[in-house]
């Protein structure tokens, strides 16, 4: 008979891989718990030698950095896999992409020990792109100018724990509207699928409690009358140190 307290022996982790992945298209509606479920099954489908925690209900050892909120797309999400035997990053990327649903797409896999990934060390802020359907770029310019002139912009957000008050202004490092004349503006339709819109770009500090692009949009709506015709589409483009984000201006 099995001994009641015998815990399953688990192989030790010998390698930690940092996975940068995207949440695209329909998968932007996945919550962080949905994404965790997807990866737990994905690593098993991919046959990766994932390490497990000890205990009665062993869990695959995957740790997630603060994920983009439900409904927000991302090109820069990070998680760390603990493996029981060593594998090359590109091979892991390939195997995961074959196993994951479309829209949860692995961009890059690097060894945690190399420190070569953006989210290591000084991960202080994110760069975001927000598409505002039905908004004139000029109207967006005026609202943004008004917002940036504020000393603070208190907003309320409804959370599971009730109403939370935040200052949306202090966390915003940069905020601008993509110039329609900008060569990048020509990509607008291709990037967003929305023809008639304004596109905001912003760098927002990772604060506690977290200020999200959504909170900035709340301030723009409440204080500066900026109301899109349908819900905004937000994408995280990058996260890391301010120096690193200053160097990534790509749409």
């Amino acid at each position, binding site marked *: 008979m099995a001994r009641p*307290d*015998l815990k399953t022996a688990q192989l030790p982790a010998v390698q930690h891989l940092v996975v940068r992945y995207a949440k695209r298209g329909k998968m932007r*509606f996945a919550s962080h718990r949905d994404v965790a479920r997807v990866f737990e099954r994905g690593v098993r489908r991919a*046959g990766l030698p994932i390490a497990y925690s000890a205990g009665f209900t*062993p869990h695959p050892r995957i740790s997630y950095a603060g994920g983009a909120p439900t*409904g927000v797309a991302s090109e820069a999400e990070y998680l760390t896999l603990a493996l029981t035997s060593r594998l090359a990053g590109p091979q892991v990327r390939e195997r995961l992409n074959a196993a994951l649903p479309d829209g949860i797409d692995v961009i890059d896999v690097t060894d945690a020990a190399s420190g070569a990934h953006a989210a290591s060390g000084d991960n202080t802020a994110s760069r975001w792109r927000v598409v505002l359907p039905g908004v004139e770029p000029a109207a967006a310019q005026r609202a943004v100018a008004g917002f940036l002139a504020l000393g603070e912009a208190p907003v309320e957000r409804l959370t599971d724990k009730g109403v939370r008050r935040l200052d949306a202004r202090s966390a915003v490092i940069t905020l601008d509207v993509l110039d329609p004349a900008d060569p990048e503006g020509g990509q607008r339709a291709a990037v967003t699928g929305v023809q008639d819109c304004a596109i905001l770009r912003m760098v927002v500090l990772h604060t506690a409690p977290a200020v999200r692009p959504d909170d900035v949009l709340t301030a723009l709506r409440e204080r500066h009358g900026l109301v899109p015709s349908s819900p905004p589409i937000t994408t995280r483009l990058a996260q890391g140190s301010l120096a690193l984000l200053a160097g990534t201006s790509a749409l």
Partner: protein
Amino acid sequence: MPVESVYPALEPLLPRVRKPVQYVGGEVGSVTKDWDSADVRWALCYPDAYEVGLPNQGIQILYEVLNERDGVLAERTYAVWPDLEALMRDHGVPQFTVDAHRPVGAFDVLGVSFATEMAYTNLLTVLDLAGIPLFSSERTLAHPLVIAGGHAAFNPEPIADFLDAVVLGDGEQAVLAITDVIRAWKQAGQPDGRDGLLLGLANLAYVPRFYDFSYHPDGRISNVSPNRQDIPPTVSKHTVMDLDAWPYPRAPIVPVAETVHERYSVEIFRGCTRGCRFCQAGMITRPVRERSITTIGSMVAAGVAASGFDEVGLLSLSSADHSEINEIAVDLADCYEGSNVGLSLPSTRVDAFNVTLANELSRNGRRSGLTFAPEGGSERMRKVINKMVTEEDLIRTVSTSYASGWRQVKLYFMCGLPTETDEDVLAIAALARRVIAVGREASGRRDIRCTVSIGAFVPKPHTPFQWAAQCPPEVVDARLRALGGALRADRAYAKAIGYRYHDGQPGVIEGLLSRGDRRVGRVILAAWLDGGRFDGWSEYFSFERWVRCAESALANEPVDLAWYTTRERDYSEVLPWDHLDAGLDRDWLWQDWQDSIAPEGAAEVEDCRWTPCYECGVCSAMGTEIQVGPTGERLDGRRLLPVVSRR
């Protein structure tokens, strides 16, 4: 012509609803086919929330069976929650499939699987959002054929006016036969319109519009008969006779959203002949047909590899009854040793559970909860329902479980069974205390627990209790309260015993919908128009609404809610499902009902797998036979092992 996706119109609504991921599809295992590549297109609907409907085996099996065929396309659609329903109505977004977000109204067939009657109002929401007229009689060639299946469809009369056809029994071969009829009818230029198609289906499926009901002045049914030529007086269920030839699902759909069952499930046998008198599933799915250990092994290997699930559920109505269950459990546990894949047996009889199973199910360190269903608290009660489990069986089983490391055992019971007294229900408290006492002794620990879960019994069609009076909700509630008090009374045990119960009122409505006839359709429509949705969910269910709607919708009839529920029927009464043939001999069912309530004590019915045939009628009526092992085969662990790589 291709059909446009409604996703561009749906997408802006999704940030405004709860759990939007349930509406976007894109799951591993899902299939999207080119619209024009198919000439017969099915929308398969589970009329409840995605989180409940996604794991449904019936839908997953039919989805795969249909999509494997060239020229056939199947997509899935689920009930949307009221928050999205309101937005869809505001913005003119129709009911959609989650696979390619195609409008349900564009398909040839809307196939709806009913596991429970409480989903009937959701059927109306799905039809209405799809732009399909609620009444079959109002549909034209522009609308899909609406076909129901699933266990609840064995008495479809309450929703008969909303359905075009009903499939009884196993769906694997039936959906393909129906597909062939639809294809031939379309290729011939849709001769005789919708009726032409329904006539072609009338021997495969029950077509309610071809049958008329007449009633006695007191409200009882006087006659049910076909209203045109060439329509059979009764319609029989379908039975798949070789489960090894139908090894589905092979590549299960792996949800992104959280769902009620997070595992790869394989049906290890279909049917049950234990003969529990309350159990509709056990009556309508006869005979027992086992899937062989080797097919189960290869399905598990492929299913786990394709899905990445870390739990394998061995499904059936009573999984420990498989003739080779120990071999299956030992061999699968061997294959997955050290891989963190666990096994579970969702339905286990206490008298079939054993030490081998206890050990194999916990081999990988997992001890997911063990649940047993004695159903009746007293030995007398269990005899009445023919759940022949002795208290000693139960005590031995829980003792084994606690000794093998489980800390928690769940016990399921029913309240309101025929002939039940207060004492029968209170006996549950004594049983639970004995379970804890034995568990403490077997485990040597004080922290073990037992949860008593109890709900109201609802008499179901095609069972020996189909004639029984349903217990009034006040009586059920009083007994549940008394049991709660008794469970808390002894302080030495109170903290170790958990108590969960469902009160009696929803059971009354389930009873109305289970044993109702066509007149009940008016009540369902009234409840839906009044806002009835998701009636299986306590946060949405309104007893007051249903009582009010039953009163108004049946005001001009000699029948009412009590007539349908708490009234005992006699032998001669025509039951609303008598023309629907599950194979069970009506006289056998009646005798079994009489045997259960015999004043001298209930007579026992054995299981025909292990005793001579007692002629319930199914095999002779349906041309079927019992299929059980043992096969003597074993699973080769090394062959299955590459499932989870350990490089």
